[in-house]
């Protein structure tokens, strides 16, 4: 195995374990890794932005292909930096106005089409299906999301939740019943969202532990095992130094 991969495995394992020490308690080892994380990430983003934006999208096309027109967006972008000079800060407003205005202009037609019209269109689907020349059917299959029964449930859900959101007056009579239905629908959806959030978080943990298991292999020199012993030892030493707050028994 190449030397840089072995060193990489040791570094990656060490950093992973340092972050995990936070589960025991906040400690200097975690803080070290945390600050390193911020530093490396910011450094990475600076390099990528410089290389992609300045080198490949601006300098190269202008110098190599003579695309001088690119200087116009560059100039508008530079206006934003005027924000840092108090006297010239007003100039940055033109750049912001242009960008925000463009965003607003783009958002109106696209949002109406994608999220309002298309979503309403799918909600008011025919509640009965026509089959053949003169037959009308109503499919009751709960498990098929596009059955007529589910179309009615979706219509009920969408309208009751929208009612609950938009009519924030005190509900009474029929209004109260509709708003209550909306709340029940909302709670079920929040429950589903919670279930999926748990799923996602556990997947991330599984991913990290899979890497740690991979790096406990002999071909890497078993960094997971050695570094785990080392870090537990370090935590123990740190705990002993904290004489004013003795560590918990776990």
């Amino acid at each position, binding site marked *: 195995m190449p030397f840089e991969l072995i060193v*990489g495995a040791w*570094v990656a394992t060490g950093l992973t374990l340092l972050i995990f020490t936070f589960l025991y308690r906040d400690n200097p080892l975690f803080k070290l890794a945390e600050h390193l994380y911020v530093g490396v990430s*910011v450094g990475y983003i600076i390099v*990528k932005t410089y290389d992609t934006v300045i080198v490949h999208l601006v300098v190269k096309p202008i110098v190599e292909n003579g695309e001088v027109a690119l200087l116009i967006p560059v100039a508008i972008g530079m206006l934003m930096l005027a924000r840092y000079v108090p006297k010239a800060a007003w100039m940055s407003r033109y750049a912001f106005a242009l960008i925000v205005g463009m965003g607003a202009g783009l958002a109106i037609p696209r949002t109406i089409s994608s999220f309002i019209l298309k979503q309403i269109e799918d909600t008011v689907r025919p509640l009965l299906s026509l089959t053949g020349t003169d037959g009308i059917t109503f499919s009751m299959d709960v*498990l098929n999301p596009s059955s007529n029964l589910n179309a009615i449930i979706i219509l009920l*859900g969408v309208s009751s939740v929208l009612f609950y959101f938009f009519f924030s007056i005190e509900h009474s009579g029929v209004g109260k019943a509709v708003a209550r239905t909306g709340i029940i629908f909302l709670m079920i959806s929040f*429950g*589903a969202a919670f279930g999926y959030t748990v799923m996602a978080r556990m997947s991330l943990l599984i991913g990290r532990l899979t890497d740690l298991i991979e790096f406990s292999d002999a071909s890497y020199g078993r960094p997971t095992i050695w570094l785990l012993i080392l870090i537990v030892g370090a935590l123990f030493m740190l705990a002993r130094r904290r004489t004013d707050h003795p560590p918990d028994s776990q």
Partner: protein
Amino acid sequence: MILGVTSLFHQHAVKIKRQEAGWGYSLVLYGGMLGTIAVGLWANGKESVNGAMTAFGWVYNFMMVPLQGTMFAILAFFIASAAYRSFRARSREAAVLLVAAVIVMMGRVPLGEYLIPLSGDVSSWILNVLNASVRRAILIGVSLGAVALSFKIIFGVERSYLGGGKE
């Protein structure tokens, strides 16, 4: 982005200069950042050249990827602890939420579908019908708000994005 980076630069530079508590960590932050920028510029901003990893790629793969990944992975432990501490059926609504969450958690893993085959179908129905209708209502509501805001911006009613407020 520039705003965030400059304030980060400034905040930690002050800490190092005044040797405030924890200035060593700020030094680590600076070291990590400058080191990454140096190897990044050396490698022309490329993580690999013709399939071979550069030093910049090494920093990315063996430092940034595990650090960022683990930062988010520890949330798994905290969501478990939060579930134990605060996920209680205090009211009828909370009970509905709890039951829906348990069904979805069961129905989306092989063991749940194996033990109670119906749980997979029920959680599919919850997601595709009940959840979809709520999310649709939210999407329509939020979109109406976004369109209204866009019109306000275009007609100059909403100008707070320009900053200040002084004309």
